């Protein structure tokens, strides 16, 4: 079923086949025979209720945890068969952004050094040029280079997630897996981060798998959506079709429970004395 909705031409980046993971002591599998294909430059969302297996799947896809069975290929290379050192080097090309940026940054290492890590680990930038490279990375995510000297707890939630995004992009990945990247952020900061992510995705030609419980995020950040329930992918297709006319029971429940603003009235907002609020991309 995974091949159906994918745009035909783009080559497959990541292919998972029948991935299964059961946690010790649990009767049911957290991820139960999931197959999917992510193609170059594609925007895919993975939605589902909590406990549906989204995060476990994300961690399987980046090989943070070992599946009980199944196959996993990155651009044709078997990720599960790779020895530690080649796998470590290959990690430059697929990255994960975590839900809670404070938890995902080392509490006792300064931001600058944490941003240097991927540049050093993958030999991307020679040592002498790293400070400028770090400043450039911070600039790309809209942060002042002076933040390099700070510790994670000295930053706001939005700034931390920008740092985490910068760190994930430092090694020039082709695939980004984002695990609820805006769920822990303040409402007024969510749109900033989503816009930033989309801008960077275009600039880098990235593909992403956006994991979210928020259908609104799926709507703006994905062209194709996978719906997960009970460890399985129960529905898949273009975002508009799946969320507009859900077929699987789990999708219907998600769509029914979504809280949206009531339809806009014909009148619309009255103009302010200055021009009305316009989309901004800074």
């Amino acid at each position, binding site marked *: 079923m995974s091949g159906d909705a994918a745009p035909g031409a783009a080559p497959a980046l990541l292919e998972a086949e029948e991935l299964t993971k059961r946690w010790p002591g649990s009767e049911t599998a957290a991820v139960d025979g999931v197959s999917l294909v992510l193609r170059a430059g594609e925007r895919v969302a993975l939605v589902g*209720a*909590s*406990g549906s297996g989204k995060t476990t799947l994300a961690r399987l896809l980046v090989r943070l945890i070992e599946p009980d069975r199944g196959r996993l290929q990155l651009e044709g290379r078997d990720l599960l068969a790779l020895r530690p050192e080649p796998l470590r080097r290959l990690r430059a090309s697929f990255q994960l952004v975590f839900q809670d940026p404070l938890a995902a940054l080392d509490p006792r290492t300064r931001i600058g050094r944490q941003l240097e890590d991927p540049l050093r680990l993958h030999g991307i930038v020679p040592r002498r040029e790293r400070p400028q490279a770090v400043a450039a990375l911070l600039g790309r995510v809209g942060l002042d280079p002076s933040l390099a000297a700070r510790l994670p707890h000295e930053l*706001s*939630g*939005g*700034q931390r997630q920008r740092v985490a995004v910068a760190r994930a992009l430092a090694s020039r990945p082709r695939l980004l897996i984002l695990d609820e990247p805006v769920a822990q952020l*303040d*409402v*007024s*900061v*969510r*749109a*900033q981060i*989503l*816009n930033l992510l*989309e*801008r960077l995705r275009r600039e880098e030609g990235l593909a992403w798998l956006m994991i979210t*419980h*928020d259908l*609104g*995020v799926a*709507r*703006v950040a994905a*062209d194709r959506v996978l719906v997960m329930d009970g460890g399985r992918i129960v529905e898949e297709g273009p*975002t*508009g079709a799946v969320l507009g006319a859900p077929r699987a029971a789990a999708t219907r*429940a*998600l769509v*029914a*429970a*979504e*809280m*949206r*603003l*009531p339809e*806009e*009235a014909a*009148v*619309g*907002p*009255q103009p*302010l*004395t*200055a*021009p*009305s*609020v*316009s*989309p*901004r*991309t*800074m």
Partner: protein
Amino acid sequence: MSATPLVELAGLRVRLPGPRGPVEALRGVDLVLGPGERLVLVGESGSGKSTLLLTLAGLLPAEAELAGTVRFPALGRPPLRGRELGLVLQDPFASLHPMLTVGEQIAEVLVTHRGQGWRAARAAAIGLLERVGITRPERRVDDYPHRFSGGQRQRIAIAMAVAAGPRLLLADEPTSALDTVIQAQILELLSSLVRERGTALLLVTHDLALAAHCADRIAVLYAGRIVEVAPAGPLLQRPRHPYTRALVATARDLGRLGGGPLTEIPGLPPDPTATPAGCAFAPRCAHALARCGTEAPAWSGDGRAGVACHLVPP
């Protein structure tokens, strides 16, 4: 809405001690809540929404400095927690006693505040459990909290909060710890319970779309001040304050497929330890005038509806 108000706040200021110096959590709040009314306070972290709720519940820490007035005209005195005021908190795991059965916990409210006997209270507890949607309540009444899911626990916490028939129910992000599918059910339950009992509801959330689902009126809080209050419909259809407009626009963008960038509010929420000279939103406002940075906008309106912005004609 012309009945004696249940809650009346005027010029409320609250200063709390913080690790980096005192925090002006509330900087002059005027607000009126009528009996049976459902008011939703929308704000981000640090906006002062939880402080406002704690002030009403009488649960501010002893070191808090208060100025302005907090009155409960319909009661003539502060409400008694548990009897006249119910509280539903974010974390349903923290609000139930782990070593008492849920029946005992609900019955205790009735025995303490309604003077009922334990036998009658237990029967009433079963009725309440049924009302909040616990299936087969006569069998679950003697279970301990750990036997229930997060959503069920929040239902039980709601049953406890409304057991004594309070006049005012305060709810602090009651669904943000729950799964999306459960969120809507819990909100529906809260909303219908207060409706049928004539209880006033003050619910605090960061989510404007959630507010749209259970509010008669919405108050938008930013950096310790209410920037706009209005009945839910007009506020969502014709937001007046630039902050509210941006929030509404972002929420609407998230309802649309793909397309261009989302409406975004640039910058960061203000540092709570620093009191801004003018309008707290001015540094992030796309329309700010020179005076916005120096002169705090006056409140145009009353405790029921109004807006604080130099750009909005009174």
